[in-house]
């Protein structure tokens, strides 16, 4: 893809590249600095792999103090900084540039404290999302946000993007499960915002940092809430003959006073693709499927599922398949969580992430189908229906420039539709570079300028993750 512009790297920095690399070597231990080209190559992109830029250098600090050393150095030298967790961003949030230093948190991957009495864990930012849940599972706890990339993605990246997952209908997104962070500022100060007590003090700066896409500083540690695991959970598959019935069923369930822990939607193409890959027992002869999960004791689950089933019947459900074992449940979720990967096996795709009000889902699905048909592209829909966070996967051939252009155009049209229907450009993947130039579709110039002024409090020189989130042409303040 070649649609997204990058600013020209600063020639003055490029000219001093060797000096800067040598200085980094002098400042930090050898194991924490990557300057050889092969080593840097590993950091040239993230999960938006169509865009790559080789960074000037990579530092992999082991402590907050080492991060502070690196940031103070970057400030003195006027070098841009790209904070990086595991590089799983689908929006190019961790794509570097030739004049920037990547600050990777992969060496900061320890769980520092688990406190069951106060129900939190203190972790370093490079810990993976899943590692937190695994560390506390034996004691009956878990960390709630569960993005599909949870095996690889780090808590630092989750905080930068305020990541969600399949279960946020009940448990909320990262910001609702984050109690505090240790932030290294552009000045190299190490600041704790929030902490182990339930509410932070003064202004809610944590609410800015979480979802700040790495533009406010480098988060090195976090206090995250851990929750007791439910007694049990059971997903049920509901197959429908029309997208309309399935999406109206979602609205009716919520309207009836039931908030299931998860409600996921897949259309026919998404079902086919994932079933071939995960063999989860998805029904292949339906137009749309909902995975609805209920939690609690066996009796509570039975009671809730009965209420849900009554509503589904009123919406012409044709296939109902309840998981009968933990293994089946795991297969059902494996299918859903591997949907992006399985799609990648059959075609190139771009994954959209707009959210629409749930009442607009039938209309949104109709329009997505229409837009992709007009562009002559196939689309698979797999998304979090309970909260309206859509993930149309627009299939195309990366080696066909004309098709690639169509895919990007279709994607942009889908996102503009999300905004038109009262929603937003991105529900959980972040703006990154991918949706940067669409920001003006959702926000007025005054609103973008206001966001940038708040950002500038944390980063007056605009060094952290530059050329992201905000449209390039609107960058000068």
């Amino acid at each position, binding site marked *: 893809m070649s649609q997204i512009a990058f600013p020209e790297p600063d020639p003055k920095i490029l000219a001093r590249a060797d000096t800067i690399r040598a200085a980094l070597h002098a400042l930090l231990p050898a194991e924490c600095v990557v300057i050889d080209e092969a080593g840097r190559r590993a950091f040239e992109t993230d999960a938006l792999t169509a865009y790559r830029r080789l960074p000037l250098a990579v530092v992999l600090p082991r402590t907050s103090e080492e991060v502070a050393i690196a940031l103070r150095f970057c400030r003195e030298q006027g070098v841009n900084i790209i904070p990086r967790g595991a590089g799983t961003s689908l929006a190019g949030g961790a794509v570097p540039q030739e004049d920037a230093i990547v600050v990777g948190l992969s060496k900061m991957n320890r769980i520092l404290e688990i*406190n069951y*009495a*106060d*129900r939190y864990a203190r972790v370093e930012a490079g810990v993976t999302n899943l590692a937190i849940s695994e560390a506390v599972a034996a004691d*009956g706890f878990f960390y709630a946000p569960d993005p599909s990339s949870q095996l690889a993605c780090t808590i630092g990246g989750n905080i930068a993007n*305020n990541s969600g997952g399949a279960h*946020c209908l009940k448990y*909320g997104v990262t*910001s609702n499960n984050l109690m505090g962070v240790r932030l290294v*500022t552009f000045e190299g100060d190490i*600041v704790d*915002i929030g902490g*182990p*007590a*339930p*509410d932070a*003090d*003064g*202004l*809610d*700066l*944590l*609410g*800015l940092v979480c979802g700040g896409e790495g533009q406010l500083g480098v988060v090195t540690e976090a206090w995250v809430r851990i929750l*007791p*695991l*439910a007694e049990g959970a059971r997903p049920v598959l509901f197959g429908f003959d029309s997208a309309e019935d399935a999406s109206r069923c979602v*609205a*009716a369930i*919520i*309207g009836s*006073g039931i908030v299931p822990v998860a409600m996921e939607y897949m259309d026919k193409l998404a079902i086919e693709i994932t079933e071939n890959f995960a063999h989860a027992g998805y029904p292949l002869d339906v137009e749309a499927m909902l995975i609805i999960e209920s939690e*609690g004791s066996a*009796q*509570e689950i039975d009671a*809730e599922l009965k209420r849900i089933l009554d509503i589904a019947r009123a919406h012409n459900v044709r296939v109902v398949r309840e998981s009968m074992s933990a293994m089946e449940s795991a297969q059902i979720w494996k299918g859903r969580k591997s949907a992006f990967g399985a799609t990648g096996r059959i075609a190139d795709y771009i994954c959209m992430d707009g*959210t629409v*009000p*749930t*009442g607009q889902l039938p209309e949104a699905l109709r329009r997505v189908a229409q837009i992709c048909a007009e562009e002559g592209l196939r689309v698979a829909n797999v998304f979090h229906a309970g*909260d*309206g966070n859509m993930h149309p996967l627009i299939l195309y051939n990366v080696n066909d420039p004309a098709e690639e252009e169509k895919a990007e155009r279709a994607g942009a049209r889908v996102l503009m539709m999300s905004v038109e229907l*009262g*929603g*937003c450009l*991105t*529900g*959980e993947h972040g*703006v990154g570079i991918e949706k940067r130039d669409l920001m003006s579709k959702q*926000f*007025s110039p*005054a*609103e973008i300028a*206001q*966001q940038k*002024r*708040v950002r500038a*409090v*944390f980063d007056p020189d605009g060094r952290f993750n530059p050329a992201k*989130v905000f449209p390039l042409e609107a960058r000068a303040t």
Partner: protein
Amino acid sequence: MNEDVLTPADEREAAEIVAAAEAPFDIVGAGTRAGFGRPAQCGRRLSTAKLTGIVFHEPAEMTLRARAGTPLAAVEAALEQHGQMLPFEPMDPRVLFGTQGEPTVGGLIATALAGPRRLSAGAVRDNVLGLKFVNGRGEIISTGGRVTKNVTGLDLVKIHCGAQGTLGLVTEATLKLLPAPRAEATIVVRRLDDARGVEAMARALGSPYGVSGAATIHAGMGREFPRTLLRVEGFEDSVAYRTERLIALLSEFGAKHALTDDKSRRMWRAIRDVEFLAEPGERAIWRASLKPSDAPAALAALGSHARTSLLDHGGGLVWFSTDPTLEIATAVRGALRSFSGHVELIRADETLRRSADVFSPLAPALARLTRGVKASLDPKDLFNPGRMYADL
């Protein structure tokens, strides 16, 4: 003192007033929380009295948008028709502050005082999906939206929650809703000391039984012994089941019986409104947010300064009253300084609120960021100057 009240008829007029302003305002809603924060000092007031009305309520999306001056009573009435509620259980501030009038949506955002259900449903900031506000330049700024999952651009929603109106005039808020529970029950455990009470609450909160309230009411407030209370809410069959399991789980603490429905509701309303501490009205009321397991040590450190007290949020929130003097206020801050968390002086007379720290003093780096954020939203220092800190 100039007692002007500016009452814009709509958001646009509010923006014009702010754009033309050369002197600061105190933002006022219904004034039911007027005793919270450092004292108002402008004389000139900007009122949300005419910015009223529910913009939409979408029951099936569990969202409601209302203008800032809308009385909470109107919001709650609309929700009740559809069996829904505000998740964070906002307090009725009139009980504690002894005020009249109808609390508003704007006041709720500005003070962000969540009630007992904050444990399971999150704080105010977790349940505000979007805001519109007039910034200090007189621009109307929309942030967030009406959907629960939204990471588009820098989120300026949460920063307004609890900012005491210092960052802008909030004109509209979109709130997340929850279905109101069909039933509830409260397990009562009597005569636990603070350490055992907090332990019992932690045991319950670490269980899978969905506890949505965990409080301890100390002796001396209508009873001769302390009571530790644990609430479950939901569908009738599920509430009955979880009540039984929790009583079994807490049997070693002496858990035996539960209050149901109306009795349970009345109990949590009283805890929510901190009714037990409200009288005598001249006492200072404090709210400390701590690690729950620190609550017993914090109460011990406060010693006899705390005249009455109440633990909510499993011990993570300590409400207490003191005599209203600067010496005691200083001693309170000293006693609690070594604990993680923070302490707010929620109610006191004007003199004490002017002389004592109402909010915990900030570390230098946080103070710098806080001043920066204020200036980025309100560069001319127009909104509620000095309400949170003497220089902010």
